[in-house]
Protein backbone atom coordinates (compact mmCIF):
# COMPACT_ATOMS: atom_id res chain seq x y z
CA UNK A 1 0.00 0.00 0.00
CA UNK A 2 2.88 2.36 0.71
CA UNK A 3 5.09 1.26 -2.13
CA UNK A 4 5.02 4.66 -3.77
CA UNK A 5 7.06 6.43 -1.14
CA UNK A 6 9.61 5.98 1.54
CA UNK A 7 9.28 7.64 4.87
CA UNK A 8 12.78 7.87 6.19
CA UNK A 9 13.09 8.74 9.81
CA UNK A 10 16.45 10.27 10.39
CA UNK A 11 18.00 9.59 13.79
CA UNK A 12 18.13 12.63 15.99
CA UNK A 13 21.89 12.17 16.19
CA UNK A 14 22.35 13.11 12.56
CA UNK A 15 20.60 16.35 13.27
CA UNK A 16 22.72 17.00 16.33
CA UNK A 17 23.29 20.62 15.49
CA UNK A 18 19.61 21.31 15.09
CA UNK A 19 18.73 19.22 18.09
CA UNK A 20 21.13 21.17 20.28
CA UNK A 21 18.97 24.23 19.80
CA UNK A 22 15.83 22.41 20.81
CA UNK A 23 16.87 20.37 23.80
CA UNK A 24 14.62 22.31 26.13
CA UNK A 25 11.54 20.99 24.25
CA UNK A 26 11.52 17.70 26.02
CA UNK A 27 7.79 17.09 25.80
CA UNK A 28 6.90 18.74 22.53
CA UNK A 29 9.24 18.14 19.62
CA UNK A 30 9.62 19.82 16.31
CA UNK A 31 8.69 17.73 13.29
CA UNK A 32 9.85 18.58 9.78
CA UNK A 33 8.39 17.02 6.67
CA UNK A 34 10.18 17.19 3.34
CA UNK A 35 8.44 15.97 0.20
CA UNK A 36 10.55 15.05 -2.80
CA UNK A 37 9.26 13.98 -6.21
CA UNK A 38 10.55 11.02 -8.18
CA UNK A 39 12.93 13.32 -10.07
CA UNK A 40 14.52 14.47 -6.81
CA UNK A 41 12.98 17.94 -6.98
CA UNK A 42 11.11 19.32 -3.97
CA UNK A 43 7.30 19.11 -4.12
CA UNK A 44 6.00 22.57 -3.36
CA UNK A 45 2.41 23.02 -2.27
CA UNK A 46 1.87 19.45 -1.07
CA UNK A 47 -0.87 19.14 1.53
CA UNK A 48 0.36 17.67 4.83
CA UNK A 49 -1.92 16.29 7.57
CA UNK A 50 -0.90 14.89 10.92
CA UNK A 51 -3.36 12.81 12.94
CA UNK A 52 -2.73 11.24 16.33
CA UNK A 53 -3.34 7.52 16.13
CA UNK A 54 -4.95 7.55 19.58
CA UNK A 55 -7.61 9.88 18.26
CA UNK A 56 -7.40 12.14 21.31
CA UNK A 57 -6.86 15.40 19.48
CA UNK A 58 -9.76 17.30 17.93
CA UNK A 59 -9.77 18.60 14.37
CA UNK A 60 -8.16 21.97 13.86
CA UNK A 61 -10.27 25.10 14.29
CA UNK A 62 -12.32 26.03 11.20
CA UNK A 63 -11.21 29.09 9.27
CA UNK A 64 -12.76 31.63 6.91
CA UNK A 65 -10.93 31.89 3.62
CA UNK A 66 -11.44 32.35 -0.12
CA UNK A 67 -10.66 30.78 -3.44
CA UNK A 68 -10.59 33.60 -5.99
CA UNK A 69 -10.95 33.39 -9.76
CA UNK A 70 -8.33 35.41 -11.55
CA UNK A 71 -7.01 35.23 -15.13
CA UNK A 72 -9.25 32.24 -15.81
CA UNK A 73 -7.77 30.19 -12.98
CA UNK A 74 -8.64 29.46 -9.39
CA UNK A 75 -6.37 31.32 -6.98
CA UNK A 76 -5.07 29.50 -5.10
CA UNK A 77 -5.59 26.30 -7.07
CA UNK A 78 -5.32 24.26 -3.85
CA UNK A 79 -6.82 25.19 -0.50
CA UNK A 80 -6.49 23.09 2.64
CA UNK A 81 -9.03 23.87 5.35
CA UNK A 82 -10.25 22.20 8.57
CA UNK A 83 -13.70 20.66 8.59
CA UNK A 84 -16.40 23.28 9.18
CA UNK A 85 -14.49 26.07 7.41
CA UNK A 86 -16.17 28.72 5.27
CA UNK A 87 -14.88 29.48 1.80
CA UNK A 88 -15.92 32.40 -0.39
CA UNK A 89 -15.59 32.04 -4.18
CA UNK A 90 -15.33 35.61 -5.49
CA UNK A 91 -14.79 36.13 -9.22
CA UNK A 92 -12.21 38.84 -9.93
CA UNK A 93 -12.21 38.21 -13.70
CA UNK A 94 -14.09 40.37 -16.19
CA UNK A 95 -15.76 37.26 -17.60
CA UNK A 96 -18.41 35.28 -15.76
CA UNK A 97 -17.73 31.92 -14.18
CA UNK A 98 -20.03 29.12 -13.05
CA UNK A 99 -18.32 27.33 -10.21
CA UNK A 100 -19.36 23.81 -9.29
CA UNK A 101 -18.31 20.55 -7.71
CA UNK A 102 -19.88 17.13 -7.69
CA UNK A 103 -17.34 15.63 -5.29
CA UNK A 104 -19.06 13.63 -2.53
CA UNK A 105 -17.51 15.83 0.19
CA UNK A 106 -19.25 18.95 -1.16
CA UNK A 107 -21.70 19.12 -4.03
CA UNK A 108 -22.53 22.69 -5.02
CA UNK A 109 -22.97 25.07 -7.92
CA UNK A 110 -22.86 28.85 -8.10
CA UNK A 111 -24.84 30.03 -11.16
CA UNK A 112 -22.93 32.22 -13.64
CA UNK A 113 -21.58 35.30 -11.86
CA UNK A 114 -18.96 37.97 -11.50
CA UNK A 115 -17.88 39.75 -8.32
CA UNK A 116 -19.06 38.19 -5.06
CA UNK A 117 -22.82 37.75 -5.17
CA UNK A 118 -22.85 34.57 -3.06
CA UNK A 119 -22.15 34.07 0.67
CA UNK A 120 -19.27 31.75 1.67
CA UNK A 121 -19.93 28.00 1.56
CA UNK A 122 -19.41 25.71 4.54
CA UNK A 123 -17.27 22.60 4.02
CA UNK A 124 -18.35 20.27 6.80
CA UNK A 125 -17.27 16.87 5.45
CA UNK A 126 -13.63 15.79 5.20
CA UNK A 127 -12.44 14.88 1.71
CA UNK A 128 -11.04 16.24 -1.51
CA UNK A 129 -13.41 18.59 -3.33
CA UNK A 130 -12.56 19.10 -6.99
CA UNK A 131 -13.81 22.49 -8.15
CA UNK A 132 -14.47 23.41 -11.77
CA UNK A 133 -15.98 26.14 -13.93
CA UNK A 134 -18.73 24.96 -16.23
CA UNK A 135 -17.82 27.57 -18.85
CA UNK A 136 -14.03 27.13 -18.78
CA UNK A 137 -13.30 23.41 -18.50
CA UNK A 138 -9.57 23.94 -18.05
CA UNK A 139 -10.13 25.74 -14.74
CA UNK A 140 -9.46 23.23 -12.00
CA UNK A 141 -9.16 23.79 -8.25
CA UNK A 142 -9.04 21.59 -5.16
CA UNK A 143 -10.37 22.15 -1.67
CA UNK A 144 -8.77 19.67 0.70
CA UNK A 145 -11.05 19.46 3.74
CA UNK A 146 -9.21 17.89 6.64
CA UNK A 147 -10.35 16.58 10.02
CA UNK A 148 -6.73 16.36 11.25
CA UNK A 149 -5.54 18.38 14.26
CA UNK A 150 -2.47 19.59 12.33
CA UNK A 151 -2.26 20.48 8.69
CA UNK A 152 -0.41 22.68 6.23
CA UNK A 153 1.26 22.91 2.83
CA UNK A 154 4.88 22.54 1.88
CA UNK A 155 6.95 25.58 0.92
CA UNK A 156 8.77 26.10 -2.38
CA UNK A 157 11.57 23.98 -0.87
CA UNK A 158 9.07 21.14 -0.37
CA UNK A 159 9.19 21.45 3.43
CA UNK A 160 6.69 21.95 6.21
CA UNK A 161 7.21 21.81 9.92
CA UNK A 162 5.30 21.86 13.17
CA UNK A 163 7.07 23.47 16.12
CA UNK A 164 5.50 21.70 19.08
CA UNK A 165 4.15 18.23 18.50
CA UNK A 166 3.37 16.36 21.74
CA UNK A 167 5.06 12.95 22.03
CA UNK A 168 2.91 10.16 20.63
CA UNK A 169 2.11 8.11 17.54
CA UNK A 170 0.93 9.90 14.43
CA UNK A 171 -0.17 9.25 10.90
CA UNK A 172 1.46 11.68 8.48
CA UNK A 173 -0.34 12.07 5.16
CA UNK A 174 0.81 13.87 2.05
CA UNK A 175 -1.31 14.81 -0.98
CA UNK A 176 -0.63 16.76 -4.16
CA UNK A 177 -2.72 17.36 -7.32
CA UNK A 178 0.03 15.78 -9.41
CA UNK A 179 -0.21 12.39 -7.66
CA UNK A 180 -1.45 9.51 -9.79
CA UNK A 181 -4.10 8.56 -7.28
CA UNK A 182 -5.75 11.78 -6.25
CA UNK A 183 -8.44 10.08 -4.23
CA UNK A 184 -6.15 9.00 -1.38
CA UNK A 185 -3.23 10.77 0.28
CA UNK A 186 0.04 8.92 0.88
CA UNK A 187 0.22 8.01 4.60
CA UNK A 188 2.84 6.74 6.99
CA UNK A 189 2.90 6.26 10.74
CA UNK A 190 5.56 7.90 12.88
CA UNK A 191 6.10 8.17 16.61
CA UNK A 192 7.58 11.09 18.44
CA UNK A 193 9.19 10.18 21.77
CA UNK A 194 9.90 12.67 24.54
CA UNK A 195 13.62 12.41 23.69
CA UNK A 196 13.11 13.65 20.14
CA UNK A 197 13.77 17.36 20.10
CA UNK A 198 13.69 17.40 16.33
CA UNK A 199 12.57 14.77 13.88
CA UNK A 200 12.66 14.94 10.13
CA UNK A 201 10.72 12.81 7.70
CA UNK A 202 11.49 12.52 4.06
CA UNK A 203 8.70 11.55 1.68
CA UNK A 204 10.20 10.30 -1.52
CA UNK A 205 7.47 9.91 -4.13
CA UNK A 206 8.55 7.02 -6.32
CA UNK A 207 5.86 7.05 -8.99
CA UNK A 208 6.06 9.38 -11.97
CA UNK A 209 3.89 12.43 -11.42
CA UNK A 210 1.19 13.74 -13.70
CA UNK A 211 2.33 16.66 -15.82
CA UNK A 212 1.84 19.99 -14.17
CA UNK A 213 -1.16 21.78 -15.59
CA UNK A 214 -0.26 24.76 -17.73
CA UNK A 215 -0.97 28.26 -16.52
CA UNK A 216 -4.69 28.35 -16.94
CA UNK A 217 -4.59 31.75 -18.64
CA UNK A 218 -3.07 30.21 -21.74
CA UNK A 219 -5.68 27.52 -22.15
CA UNK A 220 -8.79 28.31 -20.17
CA UNK A 221 -9.72 31.34 -22.26
CA UNK A 222 -10.58 29.34 -25.32
CA UNK A 223 -13.90 30.35 -26.74
CA UNK A 224 -13.84 27.56 -29.32
Amino acid at each position, binding site marked *: MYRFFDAVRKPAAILATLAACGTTWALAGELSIRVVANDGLPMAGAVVEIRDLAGQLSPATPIDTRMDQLDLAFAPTVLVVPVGSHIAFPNSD*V*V*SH*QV*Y*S*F*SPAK*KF*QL*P*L*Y*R*GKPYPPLTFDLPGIV*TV*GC*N*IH*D*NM*LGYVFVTDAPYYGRTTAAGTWFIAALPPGSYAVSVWHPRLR*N*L*ARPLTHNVSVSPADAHSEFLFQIREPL*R*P*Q*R*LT*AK*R*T*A*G*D*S*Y
Partner: protein
Amino acid sequence: MLSTDAIARPLLLCGLLAAAPLAAQQVDVTLDGRLVSSDSRTSFLDGGLGKLRADANNTGLELGRLRFGMSGPLGESFHYVLDASVWSTDDTNPIDLTEAYLEWRPAPSSVWRSRVKAGAFYPAISLEHRAAGWTNKYFLNSSALNTWIGEELRTIGVEYNLDWLGAQRNSPFDFGLTAAAFGWNDPAGVVVAFRGFALHDRQTPLFGRLRTWTPGGGRQQRVLFDEIDGRPGYHIGAQAKYSDRVLLRAIHYNNRADSAAFDAAIDDYAWETNFNSLGLRLQSANDWTVIAQWLSGETFVGPGRHDAWYFDTQFLLLARQRGKQRFAVRYDWFATTQVRSAYPGLLGRDRGNAQIVSWTYEPIPRLELTAEYLQVDSNYNRRLRLGEIPRARENTLQIGVRYTFEMNHR
Protein backbone atom coordinates in the same frame (compact mmCIF):
# COMPACT_ATOMS: atom_id res chain seq x y z
CA MET B 1 -34.97 34.03 -51.29
CA LEU B 2 -37.72 34.82 -48.81
CA SER B 3 -37.95 31.23 -47.67
CA THR B 4 -38.34 29.68 -44.26
CA ASP B 5 -34.81 30.62 -43.33
CA ALA B 6 -35.41 34.30 -44.00
CA ILE B 7 -38.11 34.17 -41.36
CA ALA B 8 -36.71 31.62 -38.92
CA ARG B 9 -33.30 33.17 -38.45
CA PRO B 10 -34.38 36.75 -37.68
CA LEU B 11 -37.04 35.37 -35.34
CA LEU B 12 -34.45 33.43 -33.40
CA LEU B 13 -32.22 36.50 -33.19
CA CYS B 14 -35.06 38.74 -32.06
CA GLY B 15 -35.87 36.22 -29.36
CA LEU B 16 -32.29 36.26 -28.17
CA LEU B 17 -32.04 40.04 -28.24
CA ALA B 18 -35.32 40.49 -26.40
CA ALA B 19 -34.21 38.20 -23.61
CA ALA B 20 -30.67 39.57 -23.44
CA PRO B 21 -31.10 42.80 -21.42
CA LEU B 22 -32.51 40.82 -18.51
CA ALA B 23 -29.17 39.42 -17.52
CA ALA B 24 -25.54 40.37 -16.92
CA GLN B 25 -24.06 41.36 -20.25
CA GLN B 26 -20.63 41.21 -21.67
CA VAL B 27 -20.11 43.47 -24.66
CA ASP B 28 -16.87 43.55 -26.67
CA VAL B 29 -16.00 45.89 -29.49
CA THR B 30 -12.83 45.05 -31.39
CA LEU B 31 -11.24 47.34 -33.94
CA ASP B 32 -8.71 45.63 -36.19
CA GLY B 33 -6.80 47.89 -38.59
CA ARG B 34 -4.16 46.83 -41.11
CA LEU B 35 -1.35 48.29 -43.07
CA VAL B 36 -1.10 46.00 -46.08
CA SER B 37 1.45 45.53 -48.79
CA SER B 38 0.60 42.85 -51.35
CA ASP B 39 1.62 41.78 -54.84
CA SER B 40 -1.28 39.33 -55.06
CA ARG B 41 -3.18 38.49 -58.23
CA THR B 42 -6.62 40.08 -58.43
CA SER B 43 -8.35 38.95 -55.27
CA PHE B 44 -11.21 36.46 -55.46
CA LEU B 45 -13.21 39.23 -53.78
CA ASP B 46 -12.77 41.25 -56.96
CA GLY B 47 -13.52 38.43 -59.38
CA GLY B 48 -9.97 37.16 -59.76
CA LEU B 49 -8.30 33.93 -58.74
CA GLY B 50 -5.89 35.47 -56.24
CA LYS B 51 -5.70 33.63 -52.92
CA LEU B 52 -5.64 36.68 -50.66
CA ARG B 53 -8.15 39.17 -49.37
CA ALA B 54 -6.01 42.18 -50.29
CA ASP B 55 -4.42 42.29 -53.73
CA ALA B 56 -1.99 44.67 -55.40
CA ASN B 57 -4.83 47.18 -55.90
CA ASN B 58 -5.75 47.60 -52.27
CA THR B 59 -2.55 47.99 -50.39
CA GLY B 60 -2.25 50.64 -47.72
CA LEU B 61 -4.48 51.21 -44.76
CA GLU B 62 -7.32 48.69 -44.66
CA LEU B 63 -10.05 47.67 -42.25
CA GLY B 64 -9.33 44.19 -40.95
CA ARG B 65 -12.51 43.86 -38.97
CA LEU B 66 -14.81 45.80 -36.71
CA ARG B 67 -16.42 43.33 -34.36
CA PHE B 68 -19.31 43.59 -31.91
CA GLY B 69 -19.70 40.69 -29.54
CA MET B 70 -22.36 40.29 -26.91
CA SER B 71 -22.94 37.42 -24.54
CA GLY B 72 -24.44 36.72 -21.19
CA PRO B 73 -26.36 34.28 -19.05
CA LEU B 74 -30.08 33.66 -19.39
CA GLY B 75 -31.17 32.13 -16.14
CA GLU B 76 -29.06 29.50 -14.43
CA SER B 77 -28.42 27.10 -17.28
CA PHE B 78 -28.57 29.09 -20.51
CA HIS B 79 -26.35 31.65 -22.10
CA TYR B 80 -26.37 33.35 -25.47
CA VAL B 81 -23.70 34.59 -27.87
CA LEU B 82 -24.18 37.18 -30.60
CA ASP B 83 -21.30 38.17 -32.83
CA ALA B 84 -21.51 40.71 -35.62
CA SER B 85 -18.78 42.19 -37.80
CA VAL B 86 -18.04 44.78 -40.43
CA TRP B 87 -15.48 43.48 -42.95
CA SER B 88 -15.63 45.96 -45.76
CA THR B 89 -17.67 48.86 -47.07
CA ASP B 90 -18.84 46.95 -50.14
CA ASP B 91 -20.49 44.01 -48.40
CA THR B 92 -24.18 43.22 -48.84
CA ASN B 93 -24.98 44.38 -45.34
CA PRO B 94 -22.84 47.04 -43.64
CA ILE B 95 -22.83 44.92 -40.49
CA ASP B 96 -23.86 41.31 -40.27
CA LEU B 97 -23.90 38.40 -37.87
CA THR B 98 -21.31 35.64 -38.03
CA GLU B 99 -22.67 33.67 -35.06
CA ALA B 100 -25.84 33.80 -32.98
CA TYR B 101 -26.76 30.99 -30.66
CA LEU B 102 -28.22 29.92 -27.39
CA GLU B 103 -26.50 27.28 -25.29
CA TRP B 104 -27.97 25.13 -22.55
CA ARG B 105 -25.15 24.18 -20.26
CA PRO B 106 -26.36 23.16 -16.81
CA ALA B 107 -23.81 22.77 -14.01
CA PRO B 108 -22.60 19.16 -14.00
CA SER B 109 -23.92 16.93 -11.26
CA SER B 110 -21.86 13.95 -12.35
CA VAL B 111 -18.88 13.16 -14.52
CA TRP B 112 -21.21 13.19 -17.55
CA ARG B 113 -22.33 16.58 -18.81
CA SER B 114 -24.78 17.31 -21.59
CA ARG B 115 -24.79 20.57 -23.53
CA VAL B 116 -27.08 21.73 -26.31
CA LYS B 117 -26.45 24.61 -28.69
CA ALA B 118 -29.11 26.03 -30.97
CA GLY B 119 -28.74 28.80 -33.53
CA ALA B 120 -25.93 29.56 -35.95
CA PHE B 121 -22.37 28.73 -34.88
CA TYR B 122 -19.11 27.13 -35.97
CA PRO B 123 -18.62 23.40 -35.74
CA ALA B 124 -15.64 22.65 -33.47
CA ILE B 125 -12.94 22.22 -36.11
CA SER B 126 -10.45 25.06 -35.95
CA LEU B 127 -7.72 24.81 -33.34
CA GLU B 128 -6.31 28.21 -34.39
CA HIS B 129 -9.43 30.24 -33.65
CA ARG B 130 -9.32 30.32 -29.87
CA ALA B 131 -10.47 33.85 -29.10
CA ALA B 132 -13.97 35.30 -28.91
CA GLY B 133 -15.66 36.04 -32.23
CA TRP B 134 -13.90 33.08 -33.83
CA THR B 135 -10.68 35.07 -33.92
CA ASN B 136 -7.39 33.46 -34.86
CA LYS B 137 -5.04 33.62 -31.89
CA TYR B 138 -1.87 33.26 -33.93
CA PHE B 139 -2.24 34.87 -37.36
CA LEU B 140 -3.99 37.65 -39.26
CA ASN B 141 -4.34 35.21 -42.18
CA SER B 142 -5.78 31.84 -41.23
CA SER B 143 -4.80 28.48 -42.63
CA ALA B 144 -6.35 27.39 -45.93
CA LEU B 145 -8.33 24.82 -43.95
CA ASN B 146 -9.85 27.18 -41.40
CA THR B 147 -10.28 29.99 -43.93
CA TRP B 148 -12.58 27.61 -45.76
CA ILE B 149 -14.51 26.82 -42.58
CA GLY B 150 -15.07 30.56 -42.09
CA GLU B 151 -16.10 31.04 -45.70
CA GLU B 152 -18.53 28.20 -46.35
CA LEU B 153 -19.48 26.48 -43.11
CA ARG B 154 -21.85 27.30 -40.32
CA THR B 155 -23.99 24.97 -38.26
CA ILE B 156 -27.45 26.51 -38.43
CA GLY B 157 -29.37 24.09 -36.31
CA VAL B 158 -28.92 22.12 -33.11
CA GLU B 159 -25.81 20.51 -31.65
CA TYR B 160 -25.67 18.08 -28.76
CA ASN B 161 -22.47 17.53 -26.77
CA LEU B 162 -21.82 14.82 -24.24
CA ASP B 163 -18.69 15.37 -22.16
CA TRP B 164 -16.94 13.03 -19.77
CA LEU B 165 -15.29 15.35 -17.27
CA GLY B 166 -12.36 13.19 -16.27
CA ALA B 167 -10.47 16.04 -14.62
CA GLN B 168 -13.28 16.26 -12.07
CA ARG B 169 -12.92 12.56 -11.36
CA ASN B 170 -9.16 12.46 -10.81
CA SER B 171 -8.38 11.39 -14.35
CA PRO B 172 -5.95 13.25 -16.59
CA PHE B 173 -8.28 12.56 -19.54
CA ASP B 174 -11.45 14.26 -20.75
CA PHE B 175 -13.61 13.01 -23.61
CA GLY B 176 -16.41 14.52 -25.63
CA LEU B 177 -18.88 13.48 -28.33
CA THR B 178 -20.78 15.84 -30.61
CA ALA B 179 -23.72 15.36 -32.95
CA ALA B 180 -25.46 18.12 -34.87
CA ALA B 181 -28.33 18.43 -37.33
CA PHE B 182 -28.48 21.56 -39.44
CA GLY B 183 -30.03 23.22 -42.46
CA TRP B 184 -29.21 26.28 -44.56
CA ASN B 185 -25.75 25.06 -45.56
CA ASP B 186 -26.63 23.59 -48.97
CA PRO B 187 -24.36 25.80 -51.10
CA ALA B 188 -21.27 24.79 -49.05
CA GLY B 189 -18.67 23.52 -51.51
CA VAL B 190 -19.23 25.96 -54.35
CA VAL B 191 -16.35 28.23 -53.36
CA VAL B 192 -13.73 25.56 -52.77
CA ALA B 193 -14.77 23.90 -56.05
CA PHE B 194 -14.73 26.95 -58.33
CA ARG B 195 -12.08 29.10 -56.70
CA GLY B 196 -10.05 26.59 -54.68
CA PHE B 197 -8.69 27.28 -51.21
CA ALA B 198 -7.68 30.76 -50.05
CA LEU B 199 -5.93 32.23 -47.02
CA HIS B 200 -7.44 35.18 -45.18
CA ASP B 201 -9.53 36.12 -42.16
CA ARG B 202 -12.89 37.17 -43.57
CA GLN B 203 -15.82 35.11 -42.34
CA THR B 204 -18.93 34.97 -44.49
CA PRO B 205 -21.72 36.70 -42.57
CA LEU B 206 -24.96 34.79 -41.99
CA PHE B 207 -26.99 37.09 -44.22
CA GLY B 208 -24.12 38.16 -46.43
CA ARG B 209 -22.42 36.96 -49.56
CA LEU B 210 -19.02 35.76 -50.64
CA ARG B 211 -17.85 37.04 -53.99
CA THR B 212 -16.12 34.38 -55.94
CA TRP B 213 -14.97 33.62 -59.43
CA THR B 214 -17.30 31.41 -61.50
CA PRO B 215 -16.40 29.47 -64.65
CA GLY B 216 -19.55 30.83 -66.32
CA GLY B 217 -17.99 34.23 -66.28
CA GLY B 218 -16.57 36.65 -63.80
CA ARG B 219 -17.47 37.09 -60.20
CA GLN B 220 -20.65 36.12 -58.51
CA GLN B 221 -22.05 37.04 -55.12
CA ARG B 222 -22.51 33.63 -53.56
CA VAL B 223 -25.09 33.00 -50.86
CA LEU B 224 -23.74 30.24 -48.65
CA PHE B 225 -26.32 29.94 -45.92
CA ASP B 226 -29.47 28.84 -47.69
CA GLU B 227 -31.78 25.83 -47.55
CA ILE B 228 -32.44 24.52 -51.04
CA ASP B 229 -33.54 20.90 -50.85
CA GLY B 230 -35.29 20.66 -47.47
CA ARG B 231 -32.92 17.89 -46.36
CA PRO B 232 -31.06 18.45 -43.09
CA GLY B 233 -27.33 17.78 -42.88
CA TYR B 234 -25.34 16.48 -39.94
CA HIS B 235 -21.93 16.36 -38.41
CA ILE B 236 -20.62 14.04 -35.74
CA GLY B 237 -17.39 14.41 -33.85
CA ALA B 238 -15.26 13.25 -30.96
CA GLN B 239 -12.58 14.86 -28.88
CA ALA B 240 -10.07 13.70 -26.30
CA LYS B 241 -7.93 15.79 -23.98
CA TYR B 242 -4.94 14.84 -21.87
CA SER B 243 -4.73 17.35 -19.01
CA ASP B 244 -4.50 20.74 -20.73
CA ARG B 245 -1.58 19.60 -22.87
CA VAL B 246 -3.00 17.49 -25.66
CA LEU B 247 -6.23 17.94 -27.60
CA LEU B 248 -7.32 15.60 -30.38
CA ARG B 249 -10.44 16.17 -32.47
CA ALA B 250 -12.16 14.30 -35.27
CA ILE B 251 -15.26 15.28 -37.22
CA HIS B 252 -17.32 13.99 -40.10
CA TYR B 253 -19.52 16.51 -41.92
CA ASN B 254 -22.18 15.82 -44.52
CA ASN B 255 -24.70 18.42 -45.63
CA ARG B 256 -26.73 15.65 -47.33
CA ALA B 257 -27.62 18.04 -50.10
CA ASP B 258 -29.61 16.88 -53.10
CA SER B 259 -27.21 17.91 -55.85
CA ALA B 260 -30.06 18.11 -58.35
CA ALA B 261 -31.96 20.72 -56.33
CA PHE B 262 -31.72 24.24 -57.70
CA ASP B 263 -32.71 27.53 -56.12
CA ALA B 264 -33.42 30.17 -58.76
CA ALA B 265 -33.50 32.89 -56.10
CA ILE B 266 -29.78 32.54 -55.44
CA ASP B 267 -28.97 31.06 -58.86
CA ASP B 268 -27.27 28.05 -57.35
CA TYR B 269 -27.61 24.32 -56.89
CA ALA B 270 -27.40 22.49 -53.61
CA TRP B 271 -23.82 21.27 -53.37
CA GLU B 272 -23.58 17.79 -51.91
CA THR B 273 -20.55 18.09 -49.68
CA ASN B 274 -18.96 15.81 -47.13
CA PHE B 275 -15.57 15.77 -45.46
CA ASN B 276 -13.53 14.26 -42.65
CA SER B 277 -11.18 16.29 -40.53
CA LEU B 278 -8.65 15.64 -37.77
CA GLY B 279 -6.92 18.12 -35.50
CA LEU B 280 -4.19 17.84 -32.89
CA ARG B 281 -2.93 20.51 -30.53
CA LEU B 282 0.01 20.09 -28.17
CA GLN B 283 1.10 22.60 -25.54
CA SER B 284 4.28 22.40 -23.55
CA ALA B 285 5.15 23.80 -20.14
CA ASN B 286 7.70 26.14 -21.75
CA ASP B 287 5.03 27.79 -23.88
CA TRP B 288 5.39 26.00 -27.19
CA THR B 289 2.21 25.20 -29.10
CA VAL B 290 1.99 22.79 -32.01
CA ILE B 291 -1.18 22.52 -34.08
CA ALA B 292 -1.75 20.14 -36.97
CA GLN B 293 -5.03 19.89 -38.87
CA TRP B 294 -6.07 17.80 -41.83
CA LEU B 295 -9.23 17.88 -43.92
CA SER B 296 -10.29 15.79 -46.90
CA GLY B 297 -13.63 16.02 -48.66
CA GLU B 298 -15.63 15.89 -51.84
CA THR B 299 -18.44 17.90 -53.37
CA PHE B 300 -20.93 17.13 -56.13
CA VAL B 301 -23.29 19.35 -58.04
CA GLY B 302 -25.97 19.00 -60.67
CA PRO B 303 -28.43 16.25 -61.55
CA GLY B 304 -26.74 12.85 -61.28
CA ARG B 305 -23.79 14.54 -59.55
CA HIS B 306 -22.58 15.54 -63.00
CA ASP B 307 -19.73 17.66 -61.63
CA ALA B 308 -17.45 16.39 -58.89
CA TRP B 309 -14.43 17.70 -56.98
CA TYR B 310 -12.08 16.40 -54.32
CA PHE B 311 -10.50 18.86 -51.92
CA ASP B 312 -7.71 18.24 -49.42
CA THR B 313 -5.75 20.49 -47.13
CA GLN B 314 -3.51 20.32 -44.10
CA PHE B 315 -1.22 22.53 -42.09
CA LEU B 316 1.36 22.49 -39.35
CA LEU B 317 1.64 25.42 -36.96
CA LEU B 318 4.34 26.13 -34.41
CA ALA B 319 4.05 28.99 -31.91
CA ARG B 320 5.98 30.19 -28.91
CA GLN B 321 4.83 32.66 -26.29
CA ARG B 322 7.59 34.71 -24.67
CA GLY B 323 6.07 37.04 -22.12
CA LYS B 324 4.11 39.66 -24.05
CA GLN B 325 5.40 38.44 -27.41
CA ARG B 326 4.31 35.55 -29.56
CA PHE B 327 6.10 34.08 -32.55
CA ALA B 328 4.31 31.77 -34.92
CA VAL B 329 5.03 29.97 -38.17
CA ARG B 330 2.78 27.76 -40.27
CA TYR B 331 3.06 25.67 -43.41
CA ASP B 332 -0.10 25.03 -45.44
CA TRP B 333 -0.72 22.61 -48.24
CA PHE B 334 -3.94 22.51 -50.27
CA ALA B 335 -5.43 20.93 -53.38
CA THR B 336 -8.72 20.99 -55.25
CA THR B 337 -9.23 18.54 -58.09
CA GLN B 338 -12.22 18.42 -60.38
CA VAL B 339 -12.76 14.82 -61.41
CA ARG B 340 -15.91 15.06 -63.47
CA SER B 341 -17.77 17.67 -65.47
CA ALA B 342 -20.92 17.77 -67.59
CA TYR B 343 -19.32 20.45 -69.73
CA PRO B 344 -16.50 19.99 -72.19
CA GLY B 345 -13.17 21.57 -71.52
CA LEU B 346 -10.69 21.86 -68.76
CA LEU B 347 -11.19 20.09 -65.44
CA GLY B 348 -10.18 22.45 -62.64
CA ARG B 349 -6.97 21.59 -60.82
CA ASP B 350 -5.49 23.75 -58.08
CA ARG B 351 -2.39 22.88 -56.07
CA GLY B 352 -0.58 25.08 -53.63
CA ASN B 353 1.27 25.67 -50.44
CA ALA B 354 1.83 28.63 -48.17
CA GLN B 355 4.36 29.76 -45.63
CA ILE B 356 3.59 32.31 -42.98
CA VAL B 357 5.56 33.89 -40.18
CA SER B 358 4.06 36.18 -37.59
CA TRP B 359 5.12 38.18 -34.56
CA THR B 360 2.59 39.55 -32.08
CA TYR B 361 3.23 41.94 -29.23
CA GLU B 362 0.67 42.66 -26.51
CA PRO B 363 2.02 45.72 -24.65
CA ILE B 364 -1.14 46.10 -22.56
CA PRO B 365 -4.09 43.74 -22.16
CA ARG B 366 -6.48 43.78 -25.15
CA LEU B 367 -4.05 45.60 -27.46
CA GLU B 368 -2.27 43.42 -30.02
CA LEU B 369 0.28 44.57 -32.56
CA THR B 370 1.10 42.02 -35.26
CA ALA B 371 3.59 41.92 -38.11
CA GLU B 372 3.06 39.08 -40.55
CA TYR B 373 4.47 37.87 -43.82
CA LEU B 374 2.62 35.33 -45.98
CA GLN B 375 3.65 33.73 -49.22
CA VAL B 376 1.25 31.56 -51.19
CA ASP B 377 2.49 29.52 -54.09
CA SER B 378 -0.27 27.99 -56.18
CA ASN B 379 -0.87 26.49 -59.58
CA TYR B 380 -4.47 26.69 -60.80
CA ASN B 381 -5.22 25.90 -64.43
CA ARG B 382 -8.41 28.02 -64.40
CA ARG B 383 -6.25 31.13 -64.34
CA LEU B 384 -5.82 30.53 -68.08
CA ARG B 385 -9.44 31.67 -68.47
CA LEU B 386 -8.44 35.01 -67.02
CA GLY B 387 -5.53 35.27 -69.41
CA GLU B 388 -3.10 34.65 -66.57
CA ILE B 389 -0.44 32.01 -66.22
CA PRO B 390 -1.58 29.21 -63.87
CA ARG B 391 1.34 29.49 -61.51
CA ALA B 392 1.14 32.35 -59.03
CA ARG B 393 3.40 33.32 -56.19
CA GLU B 394 1.63 35.87 -54.02
CA ASN B 395 3.18 37.76 -51.13
CA THR B 396 1.62 39.91 -48.48
CA LEU B 397 3.10 41.81 -45.60
CA GLN B 398 0.68 43.09 -42.98
CA ILE B 399 0.97 45.16 -39.87
CA GLY B 400 -2.11 44.72 -37.71
CA VAL B 401 -3.34 46.73 -34.73
CA ARG B 402 -6.17 45.20 -32.77
CA TYR B 403 -7.79 46.69 -29.70
CA THR B 404 -10.76 45.32 -27.79
CA PHE B 405 -13.00 47.55 -25.71
CA GLU B 406 -14.72 45.50 -23.05
CA MET B 407 -17.95 46.74 -21.58
CA ASN B 408 -19.41 44.78 -18.75
CA HIS B 409 -22.71 45.42 -17.13
CA ARG B 410 -23.61 43.65 -13.99
